[in-house]
């Protein structure tokens, strides 16, 4: 029997006091791979069960298939493909991928490499003369934001405006009606509205003006699936802007934090920059930016590890716990950049596998290589650092580092 009620473990994981090190709690959670909660939802925490369910066609990403819709579900807007099922999901994702990756746009990410290196170089140049830097504010945040703005065709100077909206949206993802003020949810709803309006304005300007950025291409190009409607473009662009904002920041910051905690690995990376490729994969397993898929809906009755999850149930997937499952990974709590067979859940799995994964990988690889190459004798000022609120998108809010000379 795998189902018992362990509401306490989940509550402790979601509690902010566990943010710096949720991993022992994940180990506790994994004792019950499929755990039914008091509210009828299910938490899945083991590697095999998470991958099984991410490949299960009886699972839905569409909020309308939950018997008890989550908070904020009443919004009447076109969902982004992350919240849709096939065939709509496949169609929209395919139309977006047409301009972002293979087979139609195979060289986009590699073509951006010179730009990525130059942004990284410029940000590190600005460290000069500073004894202390905040890796988040001075580097890990501005880098991916500049990249995603450039890619989408969103003016970089508007960043202070949408930064606030994105923050409110992210906050509302973790909304818990029992503990959070309703204001948090309302702010999220308002911020979504504002961001949609803002992006909608940009899309309008793009019509009839084909350019190289993703917004212009989406607004002007016809593929075999036709053209996206403006609402679909706005939903897609919102998704990419938010995801481009919030995940790579954490991956880079978690990466540097992990390297500073493993000085011998940091030294190896400095000596052999090629190590960054497997190292980034290990990072995605060991300290991933996305810890939880907050919900999926059971479209039919689903059996997972002998537990029947009834139709309409909400399912929470603990990705970061799955990637530390000792039944799948040898010595999972060890950071090992030489690890073989490292099929982590850092980008999820199945049809919703992270759309921006290839870009995030390259950004992180370039960022970490240059940081260890150019920052002289970096030291952590405080360990653990202060973390952001979210247990879903987990990462430090600031990471203060001291450097010597320059």
């Amino acid at each position, binding site marked *: 029997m795998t189902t018992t009620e362990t509401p306490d473990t989940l509550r402790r994981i979601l509690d902010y006091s566990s943010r710096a090190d949720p991993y022992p709690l994940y180990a506790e959670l994994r004792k019950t791979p499929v755990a039914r909660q008091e509210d009828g939802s299910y938490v899945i925490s083991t590697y095999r069960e998470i*991958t*099984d369910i991410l*490949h*299960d*066609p*009886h699972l*839905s990403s*569409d909020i309308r*298939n939950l018997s008890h819709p989550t908070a904020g579900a009443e919004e009447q807007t076109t969902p982004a493909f992350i919240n849709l*099922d*096939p*065939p709509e999901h*496949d169609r929209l994702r395919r139309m977006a991928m047409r301009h972002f990756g293979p087979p139609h746009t195979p060289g986009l990410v590699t073509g951006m490499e010179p730009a990525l290196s130059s942004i990284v170089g410029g940000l590190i140049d600005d460290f000069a003369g500073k004894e202390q830097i905040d890796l988040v504010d001075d580097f890990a945040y501005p880098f991916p934001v500049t990249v995603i703005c450039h890619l989408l065709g969103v003016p970089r100077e508007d960043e202070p405006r949408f930064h606030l909206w994105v923050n409110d949206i992210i906050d509302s993802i973790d909304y818990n009606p029992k503990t959070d003020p309703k204001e948090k949810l309302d702010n999220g709803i308002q911020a979504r509205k504002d961001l949609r309006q803002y992006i909608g304005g940009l899309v309008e300007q793009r019509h009839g003006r084909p350019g190289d950025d993703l917004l212009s291409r989406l607004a002007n190009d016809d593929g075999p699936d036709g053209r996206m409607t403006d609402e679909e473009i706005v939903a897609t662009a919102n998704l990419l802007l938010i995801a481009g904002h919030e995940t790579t920041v954490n991956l880079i910051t978690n990466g540097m934090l992990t390297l500073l905690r493993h000085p011998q690995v940091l030294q190896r990376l400095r000596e052999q920059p090629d190590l960054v490729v497997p190292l980034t994969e290990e990072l995605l397993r060991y300290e991933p930016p996305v810890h939880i898929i907050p919900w999926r809906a059971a*479209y*039919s*009755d*689903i059996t997972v590890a002998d537990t029947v999850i009834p139709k309409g149930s909400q399912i929470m997937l603990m990705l970061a716990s799955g990637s530390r499952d000792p039944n799948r990974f040898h010595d999972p709590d060890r950071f090992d950049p030489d690890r073989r067979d490292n099929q982590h859940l850092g980008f999820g799995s*199945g*049809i919703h*596998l992270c759309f921006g994964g290839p870009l995030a990988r390259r950004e992180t690889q370039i960022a970490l290589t240059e940081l260890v190459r150019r920052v002289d004798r970096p030291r952590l000022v405080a360990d653990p650092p202060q973390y952001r609120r979210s247990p879903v998108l987990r990462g430090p809010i600031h990471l203060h580092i001291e450097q010597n000379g320059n």
Partner: protein
Amino acid sequence: MTSAENLQAFKREGRIVVVGASLAGLRAAEALRGAGFTGSLTMIGDEMGEPYDRPPLSKQVLTGWVPAENTKLPRRREIDAQWLLGVPASGLDLAGNHVRLADGREVPFDRVLISTGVRARPWFVESEAALDGVFVVRTREHAEALRRALAAGPSRVLVIGAGFTGSEIASVCREREIPVTVAELAPAPLVGALGAMIGDVAADMQRAHGVDLRCGVKVTRLEGDAQGRLRRAHFDDGSTIDTDVAVVALGGIRNTEWLQGSGLAAGVWGIACDTGCRALDLNGLITDDVFVAGDVARCPNPIYEYRLISLEHWANAVEQAEVAAHNMVSGQADRWPHLSIPLFWSIQFGVNIKSVGVPTFADEVVVTQGSVPDRRFVAAYGYRGRVTAAVSFNNAKWLDHYRQLIETAAPFPPPCPTPDQPADMKPVPVDFPGPTLLAQGATVVVTGHDPSERRVTAAHQHR
């Protein structure tokens, strides 16, 4: 000495010979070294050059996107082997423990792995097969020669056989806007592997892309001109087409002739083995020191009633090689069975086709997800009420789920609705063509009367 000490001594200084230096042979060699085998390792291969990957040969190489010489298989680790390349093995002496090479050399071994694979089935009339413009596609040289012929802009290509290789080649021709005729004896393309329903989808797909698809016909003669160049093809319905390139895609022949007289259960169907990849001898007894992997192996699969199944699949070659290698250097108690569910993929006419399980082990098929007219769907195969296989067209990411259904003998048709499901989910008969190959005659005969003297002997003359 205990058997554990024997095993340690063998791992330290034993002699392993791998016959067949392609995908399975290379992966096995890597796995042997990975498992700590430090003895001598000899790789025997009839082709010159290092092992290369075959799937791109009928796809990216023919379009010119990947040069044939860029298909070298990546190395996972150093294998520190002695390579005997460019000369085929000609015999296996199990009493004297050595492999004979065609040039007369003898290579001694303590354990041997056979991974000699298959070769292309040539056109049945030798003089016609030799015409300039008649091709097969199995090796890098074949693919490079055909690529050059396609690049020269032939007026029409004839593809003989609409299995996966033939269909992929037809797809490449259309991609390059070369007129192409496909001739298939069965009622539709891919029908032998995937049944009539998917065959119909494949036929529609070919015709929609401008292929001149002719099913239920046989090519009877390839006609050349005075210079020995292919000019025309004749069909058994009396029709002819003018063509300057013909690709013979009639499957493969297993490379087992060199094992005649070795005492192994080797024949046109491959080399029979147990799930531990240990070869069977003619009597069906398991050998101790002879292992088999890859296209040439014929291995029982418990999921499919322990039927002996041989597969020409990339993933099967890799997985079998790893199991064989492990078992070659492990004690009795630590042996692994090769139990993986077969997996296969193809790309043709812009569609990614992928299958899991054994579709021919089925009596019914049903579309479970997506839409057939849009050519993005999953079809599940069932045998007497359980799921035995699945095939996806542009929907491959779901197949892990179907693999699990096969492994757990889930009921067929799958009962639960999914978000993207056709309204009418009616299973239809799977409908494969008859077992023509099986009826081609016996390969062995049994002799003797008492249990102690009953033996099997080879009867190769029956072919």
